C-alpha cells in the first residue's frame, strides 16, 4: 500500500525534550535504580530504549541494564499470517527476577505487542513490576493496557500510520503521520 506524509508531528528538538522528560519521569517514579532494567522491543523500541538509557546516564550517572526483546513468536496472529514475520534476536543479559522492568516501544497502538512482550518476559522469570514506556501513544487499544510513560499522545485514525524515525536507522529524528494514497 502506498502512503504519503499527512503531517509532521515532531522534529529533532521536540523529540529530544520528550526523551528527556520520559527519562526524568522514569527516575521520579522509580527512586531505587538498583533494580531498574530497560527492555526494548525489536526493532525501533530498542533504539528508543538506548536513548532513554543515555539520558538517564546523563542525569543520574548510572548505566541501566538494557535488554532486547523480539516478540514475534508470542504474537497472537501468527497462525493466520500468510507470510511469517522475520524472527529477530532476543538478548536479555540479566535476570528479570524481582526487577522493575521498563518495557519500551516506539508506538503503542492496539496493545497486542505489549501483551506478547509481557508473556515473553514471564517466561524468563517473575519481575517485581513491569512499566510501559511508549514514545507515541496513538490510541485504539484493544486490550486493557496503558502506558506509564509517554513521549506524546497522538490521536489518529485507524487507517493512518505513525512513523517514528530515528537517526540510528533513518538518518533523521522526526515523527510523521502517514496516510494511504487514495486513487
Amino acid at each position, binding site marked *: 500500500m502506498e502512503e504519503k506524509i499527512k503531517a509532521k508531528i515532531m522534529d529533532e528538538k521536540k523529540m529530544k525534550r520528550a526523551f528527556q522528560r520520559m527519562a526524568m519521569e522514569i527516575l521520579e517514579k522509580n527512586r531505587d535504580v538498583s533494580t531498574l532494567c530497560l527492555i526494548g522491543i525489536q526493532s525501533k523500541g530498542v533504539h528508543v530504549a538506548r536513548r532513554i538509557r543515555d539520558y538517564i546516564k546523563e542525569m543520574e550517572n548510572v548505566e541501566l541494564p538494557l535488554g532486547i526483546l523480539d516478540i514475534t513468536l508470542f504474537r497472537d496472529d501468527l497462525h493466520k499470517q*500468510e507470510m*511469517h514475520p522475520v524472527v529477530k534476536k532476543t538478548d536479555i543479559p540479566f535476570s528479570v527476577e524481582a526487577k522493575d522492568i521498563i518495557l519500551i516501544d516506539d508506538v503503542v497502538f492496539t496493545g497486542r505487542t505489549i501483551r506478547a512482550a509481557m508473556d515473553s518476559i514471564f517466561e524468563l522469570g517473575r519481575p517485581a513490576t513491569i512499566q510501559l514506556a511508549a514514545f507515541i501513544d496513538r490510541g485504539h487499544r484493544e486490550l486493557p493496557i496503558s502506558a506509564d510513560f509517554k513521549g506524546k499522545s497522538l490521536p489518529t485514525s485507524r487507517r493512518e500510520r505513525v512513523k517514528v524515525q530515528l537517526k540510528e536507522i533513518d538518518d533523521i529524528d522526526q515523527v510523521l503521520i502517514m496516510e494511504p494514497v487514495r486513487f
Partner: protein
Amino acid sequence: MTATAFKQNHLLGIEHLQAREIDLILDTADSFVEVSNRDIKKVPALKGKTVVNLFFENSTRTRSSFEIAAKRLSADIINFSSSASSLKKGETLKDTVLTLEAMNPHIIVIRHSASGSPLYLTTFARSSIINAGDGFHEHPTQALLDALTIRQRLGRLRGLKIAIIGDILHSRVARSNIFLHQKMKNEIVLIGPPSLVPAEFCALGATVCHDIRAGVKNADVVMMLRVQEERGARNYFPSIREYRRLFAINREIFALAKKEAIVMHPGPINRDVEIDTSMADGSESVILEQVNNGIAVRMAVLYLLKGDQRHESAD
C-alpha cells in the same frame, strides 16, 4: 511489519531452494538458538499445530531433534515408527499417510529408504512435507544445520573450500551439502575411493579427487561421512583397514587444511574407521555443535513452513 518471502509449502530438498531462502532459514535458526539457551525453552509460535514424525528408517538424532524442535515451538507431535504400525499388516505408504492425514496434522516429517518418497507424498497429502532423509537422495535439514555450524564457526558461508570425504555414492547428506554449497558458490571437493566417488559427481559441479592429501589441502571445512555398512559399503573397498589407511582423517592429514579449519561429521560416527578418535574429540571438531544446531534449524524450518493450507483458509 516485516514479512518474509518464504513461499515454500514443503521442504523436499536443498536443490530447489534459492540461496536467499537458505540464508533466511539460517538467520531464523540463529534467533532460535537463543530460545534453546533460555531457562524455559518454549515459545508459543506453533501452538495448536500438529506435527507427525513418520520414520520408516532408524534414527536417533534426526527424530529426537525434530521432536524437541516441535515441542519448543509448542506444537503437538506424534511419533510414528514403522515397526509398531499397520505397515506390518500390509498397509501401503499412501494408505498410512492418508490415515494419519485424516487426523488433520499440519506438517509431516518423513524419513524413508525410497528416494523421492517425500515428493510422492506431496502429490496427495495436504500437510506440509519435510524430508528427513530419503534413500540416497537428500537430507536437507542436515545440510542446513551443517551450514549454520560453518557460519557460526567461520563467520561466513561463501568463498569456502569444502572437502567431503567418504561414501558419497550412498550419501544423501553429501548430495544436500553439494547442492547447498553449490548455491553458496563454494568450492566442493569430493574425496573417496573411485567405487564410492564416481566421476559422474562432476556433473553436480564438484571436483572429484581420490587422494585425501590433495583434496584436504587448504580446505576450510572437512566433512567426514560414515562408512555405511548397512548399505553394503563394505562391498565397495577391499577392507576397512585399507579404507582407514587411505581415507580416514587424522591429525597429520588435517594439518594440510587451513589453520582455522573445522572437522564435521553428520553422525553416527565410526570411531577409528573414518575419523580418528583424537580428531573426533578435538577442538576442531564441531560434531556436537552440529547436533545442537540441528534443533534450531528444525525449529526454523517448522516455523517457516506454512502448514496445512486448509487450516489457513478456514480461519
